[in-house]
């Protein structure tokens, strides 16, 4: 689909054309799921975020500026939906279930095939998943955007509607908590511990 087609589809979707919105959903779903999964760390929650994000996008299409990039706009909605989902889970007192993420992390290729290496890698990924589950929703979102998605602090500010200092602090606090949680593993791996 070229730029002219994309513009036309967007214009039709903004005018309430369901078929045009279907095209947008089909185009962006996989990317949306990927981000939602990284943000929530859980396949089931990620699916909920995908669904809620497209519903929000549909409701807010009237606010979308035609000249803006739909993917970027949608990305922002997904990130905020994921934060809302994490907050809701927290306020309900749900424990983060890192199983999905852990499963995926465990399946990541390791550099050495021997069982010891695999066990070590599994332990690392288990700790990583657990430590991510301990972060506050905003910390987790900011960390995901910075560490996994490679977004700059400026982009994180605009995506999560945070001030620069808040975005920096969120990333920093996340890194600090992860360092504490993963410290013993780093020591086991032979890296010197810092006071």
């Amino acid at each position, binding site marked *: 689909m070229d730029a002219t087609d994309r513009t036309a589809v967007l214009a039709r*979707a*903004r*005018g*309430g*054309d*369901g078929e045009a*919105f*279907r095209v947008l*959903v*089909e185009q*962006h*779903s*996989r990317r949306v*799921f*990927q981000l939602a*999964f*990284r943000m929530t760390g859980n396949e089931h929650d*990620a699916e909920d975020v995908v*669904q809620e994000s497209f*519903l929000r996008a*549909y*409701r807010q299409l*009237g*606010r979308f*500026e035609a000249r803006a990039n739909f993917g970027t706009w949608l990305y922002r909605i997904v990130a905020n939906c994921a934060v809302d989902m994490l*907050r809701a889970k*927290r*306020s309900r007192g749900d424990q983060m279930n890192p199983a999905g993420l852990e499963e*995926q*992390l465990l*399946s*990541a290729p390791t550099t050495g095939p021997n069982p010891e290496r695999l066990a070590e890698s599994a332990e*690392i*990924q288990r700790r*990583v998943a657990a430590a991510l589950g301990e972060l506050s*929703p*905003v*910390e987790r979102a900011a960390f995901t955007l*910075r*560490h996994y998605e490679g977004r*700059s*602090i400026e982009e994180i500010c605009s995506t999560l509607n*945070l*001030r620069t200092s*808040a975005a920096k*602090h969120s*990333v920093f*606090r996340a*890194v*600090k908590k*992860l*360092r504490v949680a993963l*410290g013993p*593993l*780093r020591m086991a*791996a032979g*890296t*010197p*511990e*810092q006071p």
Partner: protein
Amino acid sequence: MTHYSEEDLTLFFYGEGRRRGAVQLHIDSCPTCAALYQNIASTMKLIATPEAPERDERYGLEVWQRIRPILPVHPPSHSPWWAVNRLVLGGAVAALILAAFIAGRTWPQPQPPSRTPAAASSLASTDVSDRMRMVAISDHLEQSERLLLDFVNAGGQVVDVSNQQALASELIKTNRLYREAADGAGDVGIADVLDALERNLIEIAHGPSTLSLAEFNKTRMWLDASALLFKVRVLSDELHERELSSATTPRKDA
């Protein structure tokens, strides 16, 4: 020698921050900062990007089929300029509503013997203004809920709540206007929740911007004790419901 902070080095690791050349030179020559940087870098390298479970080409269609039956019936509406700053808009709407309410109270009104077209139109405008008020309050509650959640979910040994304080200060003004309007309109339930919200917003806005973990837990406890978050959420849902039903119910006086 002045060392770089953990925060500076974390930002440096991610390719952010100013004077990166100077930071690199310092790391090269300072064993303390070099060790700390190495510690940060080695931890972060343990955290590999997880691959999301595979979704095939039909996934987009599956998502569409899931959301299609629950998409709102009405097409998306265009609401460009006023959607830009919801806080400013909230304040303006609150002021208008309050002004309209005071004008309505103080303006001498003749008592018409029967319902005339003018009276019908006045009723309709009251209806519209009431709906506007509910939408605006619902929006305000949503923002307040986010703020409270942000606040209670803050963490760390020293909790920095300066961002939440700034937002609380802005919300106090709007909250006051809505509370006065609700009081005047006799909406006791709404006024009560807004009153409790206002007291808590003032506490947040005027408290210290950094709290020790013990202080923070104490603050969080009184927030929990007042069940404010729950009340705000319930009222927000209720207004949202009202909003939906008034949008779908045909007006009898039209």
